[in-house]
């Protein structure tokens, strides 16, 4: 099992993994757009045969999006690991690699993400393992009406 920077030829695999695991899905151009705009901050986990078993898809918010220059921050758009590859700490490693790249390359001051209010396992990872804090609750954020926790982690350089 190998954890490394996401490449173009990983895109269809990332999309496929996302479709298998999560109800929030995107067309391939969306995935392309992320890698071609911020190529340093998305990562994948692959098995021996090169199949994508986990990924993190990240983007940056900067002054172009109306953020203050001192508030350049990273955002995790989607992260998922196949059920069959859990308990290996893959999600944690993917997050740490992405956060570090956001900080080093883009001088991100913090990283944000959304998580389902009911997703105890994910909240545990973000809050307890990685140190995220809840910034606010976004009501009915998800397509099925569930609330999201908007979480943030401050990054040091």
């Amino acid at each position, binding site marked *: *099992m*190998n*954890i*490394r*920077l996401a*490449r*173009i*030829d990983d895109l*269809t695999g990332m*999309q*496929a993994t996302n*479709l*298998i*695991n*999560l*109800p929030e*899905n*995107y*067309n*391939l*151009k969306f995935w*392309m757009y992320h*890698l*071609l*705009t911020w*190529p*340093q901050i998305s990562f994948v986990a692959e*098995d*021996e045969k090169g199949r994508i*078993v986990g990924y993190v898809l990240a983007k940056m918010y900067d002054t172009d999006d109306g953020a203050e220059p001192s508030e350049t921050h990273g955002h995790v758009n989607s992260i998922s690991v*196949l*059920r*069959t*590859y*859990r*308990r*290996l700490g893959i999600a944690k*490693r993917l997050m740490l*690699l992405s956060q570090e*790249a956001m900080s*080093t*390359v*883009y*001088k991100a001051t913090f990283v944000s993400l959304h998580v389902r209010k009911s997703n105890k396992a994910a909240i545990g990872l973000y809050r307890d393992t990685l140190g995220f804090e809840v910034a606010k609750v976004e009501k009915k954020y998800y*397509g099925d009406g569930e609330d999201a926790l908007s979480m943030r982690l401050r990054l040091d350089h």
Partner: protein
Amino acid sequence: MSKLQLAKRALPSKEGTLFKDVLTLYETRQLKKGLKTADQILKKFPEHGETMCMKGLILVHMGRREEGMDLVKKGVRLDLTSHICWHVFGLIQKGEKNYEEALKSYMQALRFDKENMNILRDAASLQSQLRLYDGLVETRHTLARCRPVLRANWIALSVAYHLNGNLEEAKKVLEHYEDSLKNVPDYDVEHSETTMYHVKVLEDIGDYAEALAFLDVNSKSRVIVDKTGVMETRARLLSKLKSDEAEHAWRVLIDHNPDCTDYYNGYLTSQNISSDDAALLVLKEISSQIPRANAPRRLALAYSSGDQFRELAKEYLTSALVKGVPSLFADIKSLYENQARLESIQSILEQLLAEHTPASSSPTEPTTYLWILYFQAQHFSHLSQYDKALEVLERAITHTPTLPELYTCKGRVLKRAGDPYGAARALEEARRLDGQDRFLNTKCAKYHLRAGLINEAYHFFGLFTKKDAASPSADLEDMQSLLYLIEDADAQRRLGKLNLALKKYAVINKVFDEIEDDQYDFHGYSMRKFTVNIYLNLLTWEDNLRSHPVYVKAALSASQIFVALHDDPSIVKRFTSSEPLTSAEKKAQKKAKKAAHKKEEDKKPAAPTSTNEDKGLEIPNADDDPDGLKLLGCSDPLERAAKFLHPLTTLASKNIDVWIAVYDVAIRRKKYLQAVRALAHARELDADYPELHVRLAHLRKTVTSLPQVPPAPIGEVFTSTVSALLPDEVTLETFNSQYLQRHSSSPLAIFAAARVLKTLDGPLEEVDNTIFSTLGPDVKLTLKSARTMLDYLVQLGSLRVEEYRTSCDQRFPLATVFKTAEEQASLMKETVEMPIASPKDEVEI
């Protein structure tokens, strides 16, 4: 340009102003107003080509495509030297994804307005899309010359040279560009990426030392902000230079990300390690330094043997089993290729079971025992000992009935053992244990497709697809789910629903068309964002796009169906007969009618008082063949098959099935040279391939029945290739019996020989006997090949079908695919009607 032409284009000041308005109104998409204004001009000047073109463009945007297009064509004809007319024409062609024609129009436009930035930029994107790099260099040159202030123009020019194979010029442009830069802000990511691109150019030229020096200078000065990128590039360049420093560079990377196996491989290679023992020492050293890292411990297993392997494997397995890592078996599975290692692991497994079985004296974590059983079940399944695997799983399920993994494993075992219905039921049990988990849902749906339970599969998919989508299928198609599409297509095919199968294979083709199209916007975008290196990777990936396994499968399956349709056009009639529809089919038909009706409504021309709604320039996705019946009854099945297969001849040229498929299509299209060349390719890959054997016989038969030898210049090459494939003096009977003798233990080879025997008009009894020889003790009959054999006997109308079926049923006791049709129907029913266990009930085992 003649005075007359000029005179026709020029408008008096009133209309001239109106025309400027039209352009502005179009740009701001005020379509209604734009249309009105254009009509005002045309009232007075009905032959003003440019206005006509603008009106046509506006009409297309409003959804009146045909009308608009006609008008544009008229307008162009009326003013052949107007850059506006050609530009408009090109825009519309581009919207239709007709890139070749669009480029021609743009080139025409440029003849009459050489430095129009808009046209030049679009032309550059088109040239990139079409991989016309000579033209691209010229266009980028013009753009850079006209607007040197725009930094992206220089990068784009460099990239154009690079793509066109002129690395030296690419380098020069970059150097010139960098010299011209003033006041570059600190930590500028765009400049960092540009610099990394420059390093790549130097690396591609082969100047590794220069690349490294340039990298180091810019890394130290913090121009390059991508630290990991720098480290990786350093290590790679140092390795290419065979430098002593490479070792350290890779080690730094390992420290940065100890989970990246690529780094370990780089590290080991850089040290010129010649023996497994040496590699093992290195890996052990790293493990002790980074104890939490999994990678070096796993890699060590591949470099060790004997007692050392046992020790390391025991430790590796134990820690993973205590932790409860579901992927452990998948992780170490590749080690089984080595028999000694397999046996080691087997005995470790037995040891661990003895140590951790609850009944034994030492108290132990119940979950460890569970995960050992789970591992052992996969172990037995891998060795095709399915009954043992199932027995272990039953023990595990008794121990812990609520772990979904046990049921997914059971499903996989039953699938491999030939019981798709039991497999589907197992997956349904798994799914129920965690209804919120889409992974389990997807697997459950997939297993139902494999069992031919298509509607049930759709129901499962529907639990997670968008509620406002037309259907679960529609949503999955929309989201480009290749996994879903290929499974559904194959399932329809197995059920004989060739129309629906073809339809889904066509959708897969469409998805790949979409993906190919997706790159278009990035030709300009990536230059503006300066993310050049990854853009170049995008182009390479797109060039190889159709090597994707799903595309290959779809192309091969679809072309097989198309060939069958060509050989037997009566197949189509079966699908258009008035058979009573099932209630599900009636529902689907009703829905399709509704959707088609809705599309018709949408197509109706906009009423004069319609809104300004901009439908854009792209052709809307109208599905006029929801059941695939039109496709099934198409008049050109072979041409469609050829088109589908074509990319594979370069992108999947090592896949022998591709060449077999190419032959099947080419020979029927009477493209004799292409056909024999395909077989020659196949022969190079595997001269004994059973399907090749069948085609060689087919070729001989075709050749002998040809009225004349193909004419020059094909004739000679054709004849000599044929002789090389199958010497003229060898009779087909001899050829076939020799093949059978050589491969008497291979069921597929026997199958091939039987089919050839049939084409030689061998007696049915003899063909039967040949097939039946696959039941012999020396033949390695697999479940899959047994099914193929059985299907063939049925197709032949053999009198011994029952005999073969019952033999297979006995030989593969866990399989249900050899049961009678009635038994299978009842198993299907049982699977569909699986009772929902109430929370109070025990889960049925």
